[in-house]
């Protein structure tokens, strides 16, 4: 029972990270109609920028967070300008845009790998343990140990999600995002500068993905140029599970996948956890392709 609660708490903090990451996928998908497969590289960059800020520049955690988020957001905007917009302008097929995003992901990972070699002489680096308060809070009566940093992550993630929900539903630029997501041509006739909305959406997606990456680095204290690969499939499963392009769906999907992963580790050991995620993805695609919160008939490819 105790370990179950303990694992539940771990699942919540992992779920918060997955949800933030999946939100970026979902937001870009909802306006683009294409998956941005370079989003996992943005996630990695968030962790990388956080590492550099803490380890190289000796900045405190509270400063490293916004730097990682901002840096990831800006690179994400760069993706829109370099990997997507030129193709869209030429009316390229969705598959070309998808492939372009895969290429961008490879490029970003390779460049980061080079920088890693330069700085660390290796493709792996560790965050200094003493910079991040990691003494667990022990709740004796329940036999629980919770790392404060995990609690902090859950709180920040929830705040970001609430802010996003508020932005999309209550703020004018969020309304414009929904209009562009529904139909770019109509949105343009309504007087909306569609290109600006694309840039803004990529920025937000990058900020959330970067935050998720940085949190991931802080929890596992270890950063490599390849951590995006750990979460790429998880993020996809989360948005397929929740409903492609749906914001609440991405959050729900992120937490469910994390829960399932932790559960499968408890049951069968950690070697199964990715197989279980893939199996889940496969089952949803078969029985409920629109996802839990998605609309039945999809207008997108």
């Amino acid at each position, binding site marked *: 029972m105790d370990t179950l609660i303990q694992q539940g708490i771990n699942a919540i903090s992992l779920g918060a990270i997955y949800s933030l990451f999946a939100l970026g996928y979902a937001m870009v998908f909802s306006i683009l109609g294409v998956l941005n497969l370079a989003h996992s590289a943005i996630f990695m960059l968030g962790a990388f920028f956080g590492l550099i800020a803490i380890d190289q520049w000796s900045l405190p955690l509270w400063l490293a967070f916004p730097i990682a988020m901002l840096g990831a957001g800006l690179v994400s905007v760069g993706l829109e300008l370099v990997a997507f917009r030129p193709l869209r302008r030429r009316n390229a097929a969705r598959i070309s845009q998808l492939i372009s995003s895969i290429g961008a992901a490879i490029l970003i990972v390779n460049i980061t790998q080079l920088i890693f070699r330069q700085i660390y002489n290796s493709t792996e680096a560790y965050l200094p343990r003493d910079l991040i308060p990691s003494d667990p809070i022990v709740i004796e009566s329940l036999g629980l140990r919770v790392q404060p940093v995990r609690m902090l992550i859950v709180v920040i993630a929830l705040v970001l999600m609430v802010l996003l929900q508020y932005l999309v539903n209550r703020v004018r630029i969020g309304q414009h995002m*929904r209009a562009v997501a529904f139909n770019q*041509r109509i949105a*343009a006739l309504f*007087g909306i*500068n569609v290109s600006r909305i694309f840039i803004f959406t990529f920025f937000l997606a990058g900020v959330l993905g970067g935050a998720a990456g940085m949190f991931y680095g802080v929890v596992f204290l270890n950063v490599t140029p390849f951590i995006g690969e750990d979460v790429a499939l998880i993020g996809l499963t989360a948005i397929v599970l929740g409903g492609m392009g749906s914001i609440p769906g991405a959050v729900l999907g992120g937490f469910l996948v994390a829960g399932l992963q932790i559960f499968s580790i408890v049951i069968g050991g950690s070697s199964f956890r990715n197989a279980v995620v893939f199996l889940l993805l496969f089952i949803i695609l078969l029985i409920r392709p629109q996802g839990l919160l998605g609309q039945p008939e999809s207008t997108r490819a």
Partner: protein
Amino acid sequence: MTHQLDIQDLHVSYGSIRALRGVTFHIDEGQTVSLIGANGAGKSTTLNAVSGLLKPVGGRIRFRGQDITGWRADRVSALGLVQVPEGRQIIATMTVHENLIIGAHLQRTANTETLLDQIYGRFPRLSERHNQRAGLLSGGEQQMLAVGRALMMQPDLLMLDEPSMGLSPMLVNEVFDLLRDIKGQGISILVVEQNARKALQIADYAYVLERGVIAREGSAAQLREDPHILAAYLG
């Protein structure tokens, strides 16, 4: 004298398909002009090129003397040149209220509330359903919303693409009554219609588009008597 909208030798292509092959016409301040033509003649293409949804490959579009050829759609609409596109294009996932205010907020003048009251006053059915998702409205209500949205943007020239399409005869009359009202406020109108009879009743002047070129033009009264028009478009 400068016309309000002046289109000269407009060419638009879809890849190798040349949809407009030298279209020339103009609209003066306060005028109501109708563009009639068969399916595929290029009517929607003309409106979309003017509103900035399509980039012309040749020719000039001037609005009050300013060259707006190839401008982005949001910049064109900010000039007061507002299009109601073909087929009740509203944002189905947003509420009626959101559809109405979203365009108004981007316009120069800021008396959104007064405008909104006017629109709700004219379309009581929209007022009753203001918190409903626009996709749940009936076809006729969606058309009213599409026109209401455009009016919220305070157009100087309103372009409508087949506003009566798919509506019952009663609603068609309602749409044309509305257009008459709008005309009465001094707003210029460019209306594309299959329903040439109705269009020629409210228009001052009309152009007939055939396979990408203007085949005929004249005052609405003239065209109503034209035997060719009678045979081809008035049934």
